[in-house]
């Protein structure tokens, strides 16, 4: 499928640490089509954020290093791309929204300045025009009194408002895709929904693709068209959102879905919230075979013998588990 907007294949990103090589991302394939929303979901530490940041090469290199794989952006591989060419892609073609709105804006410049900076970098506008664009973007993301608030500093905004500013900044150059790295994790629950709605609304109006990184299954259900489940640096399952919730095939995915709090069930059946037992394995020395085996109640000797490949069990539904059919049935 070479027609895809973004095609990550066989990506391996390792970090050198004092204790050894951490294999944060260890062979990941992700594809995103134009105008599509893809969710990458997994526990913290599964490598999803590193994967997202690696697309724009925003990880620190060193200690990080892209060891293998390719990142095709509209058919062009970003991995060997020199910094100058990389800069032309950042924000102009792929926008990025960070997890921490409180610290992701520079406290010493006005938000207008910071948005205008992006626009000026890529569109070569005058200072005046760029500021006008910044105000326009702020009102687009529903910040009241936008033309006045462009002159305010980040500390004069609340967390939710700052995340709106971050979204405005990421969208200011009309990118074809936006990567949102846990954009709601740091926010209050009530604000989280507003930000997700805003993201959806922006996507409808501007028609860009969204790669949304999250650990919350609830967010996935609300926003995604396609879902990719990551575990310990690997993709373990990939399907459309309906397929995945209707028929999760990987035991880890099943665990994730069962761990969503459900008020209706809790009230009627007195069911307790299920947690997945155990912890994520060390990425310094990942175990041989299936990385989930130690926590899996379906695990057999075969599971620890060889790494299960990601295979298309059902058309359009990929899974990396040798017992997938038996478990799903």
């Amino acid at each position, binding site marked *: 499928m070479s027609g895809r907007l973004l095609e990550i294949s066989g990506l391996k990103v390792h970090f050198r640490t004092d204790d050894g090589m951490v294999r944060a991302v260890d062979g990941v394939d992700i594809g995103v089509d134009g105008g599509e929303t893809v969710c990458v979901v997994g526990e913290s530490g599964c490598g999803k954020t590193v994967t997202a940041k690696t697309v724009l090469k*925003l990880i620190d290199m060193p200690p990080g290093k892209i060891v293998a794989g390719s990142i095709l952006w509209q058919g062009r591989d970003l991995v060997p791309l020199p910094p100058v060419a990389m800069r032309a892609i950042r924000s102009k073609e792929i926008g990025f929204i960070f997890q921490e709105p409180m610290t992701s*804006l520079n406290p010493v410049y006005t938000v207008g300045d910071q948005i205008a900076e992006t626009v000026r970098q890529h569109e070569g506008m005058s200072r005046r025009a760029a500021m006008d664009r910044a105000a326009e973007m702020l009102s687009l993301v529903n910040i009241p009194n936008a033309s006045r608030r462009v002159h305010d500093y980040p500390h004069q905004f609340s967390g939710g408002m700052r995340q709106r500013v971050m979204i405005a*900044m990421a969208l200011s150059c009309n990118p074809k895709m936006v990567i949102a790295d846990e954009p709601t994790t740091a926010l209050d629950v009530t604000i989280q929904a507003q930000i997700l709605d805003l993201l959806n609304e922006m996507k409808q109006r501007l028609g860009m693709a969204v790669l949304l990184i999250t650990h919350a299954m609830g967010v996935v259900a609300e926003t995604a068209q396609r879902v990719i489940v990551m575990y310990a640096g690997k993709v373990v399952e990939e399907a459309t959102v309906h397929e995945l919730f209707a028929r999760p095939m990987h035991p880890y995915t099943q665990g994730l879905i069962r761990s969503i709090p459900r008020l209706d069930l809790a009230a009627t059946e007195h069911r307790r919230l299920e947690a997945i037992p155990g912890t994520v394995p060390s990425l310094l020395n990942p175990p041989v075979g299936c990385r989930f085996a130690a926590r899996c109640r379906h695990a057999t000797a075969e599971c620890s013998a060889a790494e299960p490949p990601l295979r298309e069990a059902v058309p359009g539904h990929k899974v990396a588990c040798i017992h997938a059919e038996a478990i799903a049935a």
Partner: protein
Amino acid sequence: MTQYLIRRLLIAIPSLLGISVILFTVLALAPGDPFEELATNPAVPPDVRAQLRASLGLDDPIHERYVSWLLAMLRGDWGYSFVSRIPVDQLIMQRLPTTVAVIGASQVLALCIALPVGVYAATRPYSIFDQIANTLAFVGFSLPTFFTGLLMILLFSITLDWLPFVYSTNITSSGWRWWWDHIRQAIMPVLVLGLFQGAAWTRYVRSAVLDVIRLDHVTTARAKGLPESRITMRHVVRNAMIPVVTLVALQMPAVFGGAIVTEQIFRVPGIGSLLISAILANDTPVIMAVTFVFAGLVIFFNLIADILYGWLDPRISYR
């Protein structure tokens, strides 16, 4: 911002009062009457003595003495030098410009060293450059100014005979030559002070930049597609200047200390060497006044640092 400035000014007043109280306490605690010698010193005319005693109100209760002393100090009513019998304020005003010029030039030099070296080292942490710069900075601020001063005299004046080692107050040449002679004799004092401060500041700049460089907003700037040089200047160095200003302000007393030593080594006719010669000659009014002027200068520079700080960090001035 105006409000912030007014508040800083109001905060500076108690500091000035505090320093003056400490100065006065030292004076009051000193055993004996520091002006005792006046009575037996034939070099001091009786009217000068009477005026001094009156201006200091030596027989009043302690708090009244403090108030009248402070008022006299603030009015610039500092009495006469025992030695030269010139009014102390004149004496200081003659010499202050030299001190300020030497300190100013050396601070500019220190900044010109510390900023590029510190930033470059911090953007390449643990590289060869960083390690060499870091080691040299350690050596630089471990070398006391009096020793570097002597070393420079040994090298540039005695061995190479390039520069004069005694500052001359009456340079007879004119035109360009006059300027050149002045610059030539200022080179070593400025170098000694500037290199010492530069070494200390390099470490401040390096660690401040290292702290900022790993902050989230720098990654944001990178995600915007800005060139690395622009990220460093606009999003790293600009933010790192905020803690550096504070640290530099804290260093001001040490800078003046270094200036006293340097002036003494090179015989620079500034207020530092005035202080030393006054102490060696038991010239109390001059000693008091110079110490007071140094205190005032420290507070003045702290105020400047506060203003800079408020200008650099919008979060401060709005609070």
